[in-house]
């Protein structure tokens, strides 16, 4: 596993890979190669993913919400196996059973994306408990959207993490929207850090357009979490596109979108690299092209990959040494043969 580097060129590279991957996901869908249309692109949120991932260590684990491609890429995912999973193929991370909303990989500490808003949050508290009990120095990071700030389970989870001094970091990626609902129509106060503090967590709010600020905040809170003081951070950004692939965002104005899309962490990092003289247009263009080629290949890989075998349907319901559920066809054969 290549460890995410913490300097801006690396952060830029991570963000660009996310951006390009998500663009290819859109293409996969447009070409009819995705499993379904429930694909949630994290374009605009690359700063959160790259910045926080860079503050994590190899042993750390995490869960994500349904918009989790970017986070997993930033933590070292193989984009080909991700894309294959999004296409429902056997070569995917979950053998085509999970799809975009359930990608997971235990070897990289990805305890799972989750299609239930808030559903993965308590799992990182459980992981934190394991680390405490087993004497590990890992932390576990729970990623979720602003929508989950209104799920009660979050408060139960934060309370337990604080009560037990667990190595846990809660990360709210506030992209301003939960489907068609702007956050100010979901709650009266968006000072989310106050909520976390009221439960005894260290908390911070940070601008997701500034990937270095995200990383620094995450480093500080992660250090606290590692020492037993759980943290919470809300990263503000903008969801550039619709909620899923079918959503054309009729509930917001073009003007709002135009302004929102100016909050672009990738563009900002690129500008910073140029102005700091760390890169020039040519070298960055070459990097972008290299990434584009890498991501193009994921579509070809997915298109060529095989669908899962029919009988694999009955596998993985229970542990490998356990009997599989009886298929309907077998049962009917038996009954009707009688």
């Amino acid at each position, binding site marked *: 596993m290549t460890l995410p580097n913490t300097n801006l060129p690396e952060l830029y590279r991570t963000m660009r890979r996310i951006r390009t991957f998500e663009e290819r996901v859109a293409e996969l869908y447009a070409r009819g190669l995705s*499993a*379904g*249309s*429930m694909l949630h692109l994290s374009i605009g949120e690359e700063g959160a993913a790259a910045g926080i991932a860079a503050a994590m260590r190899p042993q750390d684990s995490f869960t994500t919400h349904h918009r989790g491609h970017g986070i997993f890429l930033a933590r070292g995912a193989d984009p080909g196996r991700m894309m294959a999973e999004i296409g*429902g*193929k056997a070569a995917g991370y979950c053998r*085509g*059973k*999970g*799809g975009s*909303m*359930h990608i997971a990989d235990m070897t990289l500490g990805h305890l799972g994306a*989750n*299609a*239930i*808003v*808030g*559903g993965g949050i308590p799992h990182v508290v459980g992981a934190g408990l394991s680390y405490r009990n087993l004497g590990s120095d890992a932390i576990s990071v729970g990623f979720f959207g602003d*929508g*989950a700030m*209104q*799920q*009660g389970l979050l408060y139960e989870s934060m309370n337990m993490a604080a009560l037990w001094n667990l190595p846990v970091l809660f990360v709210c990626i506030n992209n301003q929207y*939960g*489907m*068609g*609902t702007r956050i100010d*129509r*979901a*709650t009266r106060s968006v000072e989310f850090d106050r909520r976390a503090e009221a439960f005894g967590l260290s908390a911070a709010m940070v601008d997701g357009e500034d990937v270095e600020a995200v990383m620094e905040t995450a480093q500080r809170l992660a250090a606290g979490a590692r020492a037993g003081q759980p943290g919470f951070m809300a990263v503000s950004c903008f969801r550039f596109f619709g909620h899923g692939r079918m959503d054309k965002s009729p*509930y917001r104005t073009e003007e709002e979108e135009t302004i929102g899309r100016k909050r672009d962490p990738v563009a900002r990092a690129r500008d910073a690299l140029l102005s700091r003289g760390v890169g020039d247009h040519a070298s960055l263009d070459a990097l972008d092209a290299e990434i584009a080629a890498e991501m193009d290949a994921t579509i070809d890989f997915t298109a060529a990959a095989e*669908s*899962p075998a*029919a009988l*694999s*349907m*009955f596998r993985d*319901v229970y542990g490998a040494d356990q009997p599989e*559920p*009886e*298929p*309907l*066809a077998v049962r*009917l054969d038996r*009954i*009707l043969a009688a």
Partner: protein
Amino acid sequence: MASTEITYRDALRRALQDGMRADETVVVIGEEVGAYGGAYGVTKDLMAEFGVTRLIDTPISEPAIVGVAVGAAMTGLRPVAELMYVDFLGLVMDQLANQAAKIRYMFGGQIGVPMVLRTQGGTGRSAGAQHSQSLEGWIMHTPGLRLAMPATAEDAYHLLRHSLTLPDPVVFIEHKSLYTRKEMADLDTPAAPWGKAIVRRQGGDLALVTYSRMVHVALAAAEMLSQAGIEIEVIDLRTLNPLDMDTVIASVERTGRAMVVSEGPLTAGVAAELAARISEECFDYLQDPVIRVAGEDIPIPVSPELESASIPTQALIVATVQRMLRR
């Protein structure tokens, strides 16, 4: 009784609209029901007519959505709470099964909870294990909850209208793969009263009992079987609570054979109840065991091929009926 061509989705919208016009206390409450028009478009455009006090967009707080509906129903409103996916029942079963379903009883009949929980379930969109389930079995097993599962646009309309007049909580489960289905519907007169099943197709060889989208799969299977000279009766239950066993029993007594079909997982689900009831009520008439064709006992996989193979197919129904009659 003028018939009109309409989709399942539009019929539902009309039912809400007409119900809200007829009764000022009806409010719709849920995620994206207002400005967005509903995740599946059912409440589209209603906001313009009814405004934010009657089409209430909520935060993503399912337990509170149902709990708030319960409290509102006890104090003069008639809420239609919407759960975007039936899969989220796991978040609200306390408010639904411990509160809504039991309040009248626990309080000795003082008050009821006249609310509707609208939601949608089933497969068909590669939406994965947490967005494709058929969980009506949990509801049917909960005393105090009515349960409607329309298969047609006409039933979608009338069952929802009627739900809005009942004194008790109704769980109203739509099927995500039916919304765009278009058909002729009589919106003035229901084909049958609330709580009564409908024989969708007559036949003397076997009684097939089902509901929701599987009605259409069964009807297609029946057509294929007919070409092979086998005539099966297809019964659409429409509501699972109340459960109209009279219609089912009459058909089984006539045909001597029964199959029940449900998209939900086989074990301990709706198909089990139907099979058990038919077996006990029609014992002396049955030439074959009641055969259950239901969802596999597995989570729903996301791969489209696996997903569609995990629930009853037309081909399996056809083959199974043929084997039963050959037995």
